[in-house]
C-alpha cells in the first residue's frame, strides 16, 4: 500500500525519533511511504481569527502539494500538523468565500477545494491497516507494559476534526492493546501540556505537565504515549513517567532495531525502560 506522507518541520529535526520510528514501522507493516515533495511548514498553530486568512495559506499549500502529486489522502503524525492541516482542509471544503479568496491569492497554484483527506497516523493504522494486521506483525508484544494514552489538546479539538470524540480514548487504547501493552485510563489524557507557554510562562507549563504526569502515575502508568513533539518536550521534563512517541512503542513491538527509535533524542532514559523489560 502506497501512502502520501506529510512529516512537518519538527519531525525532520528535533523529533527525528518520531519520524524515523514511524516510517520504519509503516514499512514493516507493508506500506510504501511517499513523502510529499516541496512541502512547507503547516503553520504550527491554526489561527483562530476568522478573517486571518494569510496564516491559513501554509497548510492549504501543503494540501495542494498532495493534490497535485496525485494523492487523495495524506497521513501525518505530529498532533499540531494534523490539527492545522485538518482544520484548513475543512475551511477550504466548507467556506466558499474563503476558499475563493485563498485560491485567488495563490494564483501560482492549482485551485483547491478540500479534495484531500487528512489522516492522523493512529486513524490510518486502525482504518487502513487494522488492529488485527498490526497484531499479526507484532514480534515482541509489550506485555504488561502500562501505558497512558496521551492525546493532548489538538487530536480531539475541535470536534469536527478530532480523531475521536473528546472524552473517548479508544483509538490509542486500541493501538496499545494491539501492540500488547495495557492502556491506562487516566484523567490527564486530553489536558494541555502547556504548549508554547513554555516560552513565556515556564511555571505554568511545569504545573500543567506535572498534573498530567502525576495523574498518569497515580493511575499506575509506567510510560506515556504521545504524538506531539511539543508535548514530549514539555512532559519529558517530569521524570516520574517515561514519555514515548507511540511510534517508538510500535517500532519496538514490531521487533525493529532500536536505532530507528533514536531514544537518545527523548528526554530521560527511554530506551532503558524498554530494555529492562526485555522489549528491546
Amino acid at each position, binding site marked *: 500500500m502506497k501512502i502520501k506522507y506529510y512529516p512537518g*518541520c519538527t519531525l*525532520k*529535526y*528535533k523529533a527525528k525519533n518520531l519520524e524515523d520510528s514511524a516510517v520504519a514501522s509503516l514499512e514493516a507493516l507493508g506500506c510504501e511511504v511517499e513523502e510529499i515533495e*516541496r*512541502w*512547507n*511548514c503547516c*503553520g504550527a498553530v491554526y489561527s483562530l481569527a476568522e478573517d486571518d486568512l*494569510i*496564516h491559513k*495559506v*501554509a497548510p492549504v*499549500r501543503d494540501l495542494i502539494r498532495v493534490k497535485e502529486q496525485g494523492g487523495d489522502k495524506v497521513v501525518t503524525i505530529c498532533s499540531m500538523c494534523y490539527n492545522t492541516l485538518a482544520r484548513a482542509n475543512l475551511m477550504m471544503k466548507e467556506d466558499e468565500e474563503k476558499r475563493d479568496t485563498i485560491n485567488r*491569492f*495563490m494564483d*501560482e497554484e492549482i485551485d483547491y477545494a478540500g479534495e484531500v483527506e487528512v489522516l492522523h497516523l493512529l486513524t490510518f493504522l486502525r482504518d487502513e491497516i487494522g488492529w488485527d494486521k498490526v497484531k499479526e506483525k507484532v514480534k515482541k508484544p509489550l506485555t504488561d507494559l502500562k501505558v497512558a494514552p496521551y492525546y493532548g489538546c489538538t487530536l480531539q479539538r475541535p470536534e469536527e476534526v478530532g480523531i475521536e470524540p473528546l472524552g473517548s480514548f479508544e483509538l490509542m487504547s486500541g493501538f496499545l492493546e494491539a501492540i500488547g501493552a495495557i492502556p491506562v485510563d487516566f484523567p490527564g489524557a486530553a489536558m494541555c501540556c502547556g504548549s508554547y507557554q513554555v516560552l513565556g510562562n515556564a511555571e505554568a507549563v511545569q504545573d500543567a505537565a506535572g498534573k498530567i504526569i502525576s495523574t498518569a502515575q497515580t493511575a499506575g502508568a509506567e510510560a506515556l504515549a504521545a504524538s506531539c513533539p511539543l508535548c514530549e518536550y514539555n512532559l519529558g521534563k517530569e521524570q516520574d513517567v517515561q514519555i514515548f512517541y507511540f511510534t517508538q512503542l510500535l517500532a519496538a513491538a514490531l521487533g525493529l532495531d532500536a536505532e530507528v527509535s533514536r531514544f537518545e533524542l527523548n528526554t530521560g532514559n527511554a530506551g532503558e525502560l524498554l530494555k529492562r523489560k526485555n522489549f528491546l
Partner: protein
Amino acid sequence: MSETEKTQAPKMATGDRAILPEGARTIPVYIMGKRYEVPETLTIMKAMEYSGFKFVRGAGCRGGICGACPTVYRKAGDYKIYFGLACQTVVEPDMFLAQIPFYPANRTAYDLEEIGGEADAVHALYPEVFRCVACNNCTKACPMDVDVLAYISAVKQGDMAKAAEISFDCIQCGMCASRCMGEMPQFHIGQLVRRIYGRYIQPQAEHLKKRVEEINSGKYDKMLEDLTSMSKEKLTKLYTEREREPDLAPSGEWMPEDTQYL
C-alpha cells in the same frame, strides 16, 4: 583597423550606448512616472540609458548573472507586480519601471569556525526565519527562478544540504526580502547556509589539504624565488618549452619528465 574603416563603420549598439536600429518602432514606457519613447526591442536597462539615465550603480555584468540590476515593474491595466533583471527583460508598451539597486536587509555577524554545522546556528542567527507564512511572494519575486520558499522551508526543517542546493542560483539581489511578510533577509540566510554546507557538510578535497601543507612547508619557495628573479627572455623560453600533457592523453597515464614538484 585603418582610420578610413573606422569612420565608415556603421554605428552599432554597443556597451551602454543604445542606437535605434533603422525602421525600429518606438513604444511609450514610464520611468519613475515620467513618459519616454523607447525602441521596442531594448531591454529595460538599455531603454533607461536610451532615455538619458546613467547607471552609477545597479548595473554589473549585463549578462543576467551578477544580480546588480533587479527591476520591479508593472504593466498597464494589470494589478500584478513583476520582477526581473533590467539587463534581461525587454520593454513592453506602457510599462512602469524603476530600478532597485539595493535592498536593506540585516546581515548578522558570525564566525564560521565557531557556529558549527547544525541548523541551530542558523535558527539562532536568523530567528525571523520562523516568521515565514508560506505566502510564496519571495519565490514570485525571484528573477533567477529560485524556489525561495522551498529553501526557507528546508532551513526550518534543519536540512542544510537541501537549502544550500535549492538556493545555489541566488544572486543576492534581495528582491525576496523586499516582498517578505515575515520581514526576513532570505538571501543572507541562504548565503550562510551555503557557507555552512561548504565548511561542514560537503566532502573536503584531500589532495588540496596535502598541497596546502606542502606550500606551508616551503616546498615551492625556491621555485617561486627562481621564477620571480628570472629575466623575461628566460621566463618566456621556459614557458614556451614547457612540458605539456597532450590534449587526448588517457587520463592518469601521462607523466612529465621533471617530477620534483609533484
